[in-house]
């Protein structure tokens, strides 16, 4: 799967598991799976597969 533009060798994992792998808190991020926003309530169930495109986005300083 592609996560934030990087090819990762992962398959069939939940969003929660992916976030844990990168020590990211679900509260601090928004996830797009194949250009669709995934509601936070679905992070525990939603599975991501090999060919998926995932974007993990967060808030930063900006004007």
């Amino acid at each position, binding site marked *: 799967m592609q996560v934030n533009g990087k090819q990762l060798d992962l398959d069939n994992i939940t969003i929660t598991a992916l976030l844990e792998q990168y020590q990211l*808190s679900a509260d601090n991020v928004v996830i797009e799976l194949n250009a669709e926003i995934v*509601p936070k309530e679905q992070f525990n169930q939603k599975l991501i597969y090999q060919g998926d495109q995932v*974007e993990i986005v967060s808030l930063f300083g900006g*004007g």
Partner: protein
Amino acid sequence: MSKLQIGGTDLDSRLLIGTGKFPNKQIIPRVVAACGTQVVTMALRRVDLSSQEENILEYIPKDRILLPNTSGARTAEEAVRIARMAKAMGCGNWVKIEVISDNKYLLPDNQETIKATETLAKEDFIVLPYMSPDLMAAKRMVDAGAAAVMPLGAPIGTNRGIKTRELIEILIDEIEVPIIVDAGIGKPSDAAEAMEMGSAAVLVNTAIATAEDPVAMAEAFSLAVKAGRIAYEARLGVESHQANASSPLTGFLFEGGN
């Protein structure tokens, strides 16, 4: 000083601030407190998977309105996508639309901005579009549902002041929603100038964030914005080329002499 109303919310402070370029995030709550701003902008970006980063929201007092921007968007479609992500993030429904594809001057694309404004206003966002000051574009943004219009004073981050003054004055005259001067404001006196002109508010980031003492500079901007607004509401006196004496013109010692 009258209150500013945007999207049905009354605001006491007419200074909006951005959170970019500060020397550290820890200073942000002190800056917010020093200037009393009620609206704070931030940006969305991809998380860097190789580094642990803190959430900027932890540094913004909870009672402030969050104004996520769509920086990084080059098209209306991308801006809409970023705005929806910001909402999903829990930022509320305010959004500053920023659509830019010019990398040298970072001038906004008014046409794409109008399109994004229309889509997001229909989705019940409170939309504040950042724009190049142009009357027809501003009118179209208002027709599309913009809650305020944010013309630039000078290109982003340049600290050059209100170079677009005459065009902004036309917007202030002709546009019924609040005009918020965004970008280019480099000094408190620039902010005061924008407010004296009748701008409803100003958005400042670089000038505060890159000052040697951002907390003190935030206070200076807050005072300048208040002074400018009060001056505007008090109606400035008329300018003239010839002198008009402020003291009585009758002679003091020699009147009726000899």
